[in-house]
């Protein structure tokens, strides 16, 4: 939808000052803009808005896929059932836990990796970037299986390698308890998506003007001072984008949990809950309501981030 934006100075803002009718040229440009963006807009409506509206509609019904003759309108009852059920709150808590832990660790790790990539010798930079990006190229289900095999009792090597760590023994059953399972889930997620966050942060690092760094250096600022006062404030938009994308991603975590524990030991996440109501139980009404709540959570996170960081996203895109 960004296709509607026009270059400053050539678009309608320049041709039609406030209060006056837009000129013919501006109008025809606007029309052209709509003609160019229209199909994309229609496709967006079709593929994103339609399923959302349909989910909201279905969430108001008691509808089981195997019993289509008995559909009945129940209003907001499905939401009442979900929000008063402890399973929803456990799943919600688990999802928030995974999100907070993975995003926090990934931000620190990703930043460190971005610094390494930024400062590495030019000769090894491409190799280094490729090496760091490999985990991100691995399909989530594959990485989940790999980590599960590494930690499982019969095929895993983790127990025998790390039995010197307190709490780890040859027969530690990682997927037998809530927190040990969540630990492995978080670890797999962190391994998989840290490259993504570090790549976004690398882009942010590269945007910090060298003149500012030099000026700070001339003023006698230490490395830490430059980092906190120059680098980080200047890449706020990049950090926000990285955090926002990863938080949204982490909040919808599904594959890793599905593969590793299948929701056992209270490790179920919100999207897993939606999957089970809709796909496993074929309760379309209840499942849609869970999906709508998941969607609303994601919207709240988005708005919270954008408001909280006070970053103008269009500025981050370099449009103003």
């Amino acid at each position, binding site marked *: 939808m960004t296709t509607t934006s026009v270059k400053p100075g050539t678009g309608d803002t320049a041709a039609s000052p406030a209060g006056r009718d837009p000129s013919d040229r501006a109008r025809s440009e606007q029309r052209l803009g709509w003609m160019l963006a229209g199909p994309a807009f229609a496709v967006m409506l079709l593929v994103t808005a339609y399923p959302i509206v349909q989910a909201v509609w279905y969430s108001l019904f008691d509808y089981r896929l195997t019993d289509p003759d008995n559909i009945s309108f129940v209003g907001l009852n499905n939401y009442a059932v979900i929000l008063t059920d402890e399973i929803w709150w456990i799943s919600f808590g688990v999802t928030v836990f995974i999100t907070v832990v993975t995003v926090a660790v990934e931000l620190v790790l990703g930043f460190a990796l971005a610094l390494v990539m930024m400062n590495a010798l030019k000769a090894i930079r491409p190799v280094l970037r490729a090496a760091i990006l490999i985990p991100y190229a691995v399909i989530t289900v594959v990485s989940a299986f790999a980590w599960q095999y590494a930690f499982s009792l019969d095929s895993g090597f983790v127990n025998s390698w790390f039995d010197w760590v307190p709490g780890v023994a040859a027969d530690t059953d990682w997927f037998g308890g809530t927190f040990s399972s969540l630990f492995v889930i978080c670890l797999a997620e962190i391994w998989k998506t840290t490259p993504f966050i570090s790549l976004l942060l690398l882009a942010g690092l590269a945007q910090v003007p060298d003149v500012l760094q030099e000026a700070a250096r001339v003023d006698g600022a230490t490395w830490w001072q430059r980092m906190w006062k120059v680098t980080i404030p200047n890449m706020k938009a990049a950090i926000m984008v990285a955090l926002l994308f990863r938080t949204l991603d982490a909040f919808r975590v599904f594959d890793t949990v599905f593969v590793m524990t*299948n929701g*056992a030991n209270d490790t179920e996440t919100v999207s897993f809950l939606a999957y089970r109501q809709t796909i496993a139980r074929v309760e379309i009404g209840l499942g849609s309501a869970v999906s709508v709540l998941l969607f609303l959570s994601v919207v709240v996170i988005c708005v919270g981030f954008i408001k909280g960081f006070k970053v103008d996203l269009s500025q981050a895109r370099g449009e103003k």
Partner: protein
Amino acid sequence: MRHARWRRVLAAGVAAAALVGLAGCGGAPAGPPVLNWYINPDDGGQAEIAAACTAASNGAYRIEVSTLPRQSSEQRQQLIRRLAANDSSIDIMSIDPPYIPEFAEAGFLAPVPQDVAQRTTAGVVNSAKEGASWNGELVTVPFWANTQLLWYRTSQVAATGLDMSKPVTWDQVIAAAQRQNSTIAAQGIRAESLTVWLNALVESGGGEIVTNPSPEDPEGVELGLDSPAATKAAEIMKNVSAVGGPGFSTASEDENSNAFQAGDAMFQVNWPFVWGKVKSAVEDGTVDQATLDDFGWAIYPQVTAGTRPAPPYGGINLGVGAFSPHVDLAYDATECIVSEENQKQYFLTNGNPAAKTSVFTDPEVVEEFPMAPVIAQSLQQAKPRPQTAYYSEVSESIQRNYHPTAGIDPPGVGPATAALIKAVLAKEELL
């Protein structure tokens, strides 16, 4: 120049794709009607049967197989989603028995003709007939029937003095494993197999998980999970998990068969596939002949001494899709698939026991599977899992409350699960 070349390549590609697409729309392929058979994954036995029946039909039909996911719950999901959309490409399906009532209630199964029903149930073991029916009527065709046995390592059991030629109880098995400092491999994982185990324990103790399925009104379902039989079952589960080894709460049939084969467990309750598995391992040279010779088998353990156990019943039955354009042909094909000869062949090549009793006395079968008579006896005694159109809700509720088995409170878990199932079916709680 470069751009122009790429554009030409792209245009040629699009044109080729369009032509292929058009060719695909050019009417039905010539030849006999194709019957799609959706099968559960196996060692290729069902595909062989499909080829054999295609040949035997003399051009009346051609059977093609499509493989469903590995887990039975996922097989159900895929079939249900397609059938709910009136998918006419599903002619024959291999269905896990507990989901049959749901398919039947939803109208997804074409009615079994009377004569086909008579011919395909002649000489079939009780449990398979029961599992293929709903509301007292045959709605699917029994294909192969599975049951669990109690497998033991002869050498380890000999040291305990337990006489395996006589029926043993769970308590005896637990005590023997404790004495030997060994383990019992049972399915403690949060999965369908946990329900299979609980159902066998409750039924063996004379109880029932669902006492009245009430198909018309799901909220009226009645459960027997607060009975003494259910409490005893929960006690046994808890006691077994104490001697189940460190990975008990994540152990499925495959892990258990590995642990038993490796000698880490002296007992296991498992399906007969474990025999075929160890035999092929010996043939491959990865396992010694001594391990194979050490395998012993007996009927499923008793819950209380002197009462006949009700071992788990599994297997696969064949349903014909209600929206298939070739229902009659599909039933012809089904009859061919479940012929005694094919059942025997399937047993011999894939290790999946037949539904027809006569197969178990076949000399070839007995030579390959010396435990065939015990399997046949077990199948006659076996009981299906709760028959209700809401089976997956019942099973998932059980898995939620009975897992991990080490942490359950035997008198409390049954009533709590019954309350959960009722609330879930009344749509007052999530699952």
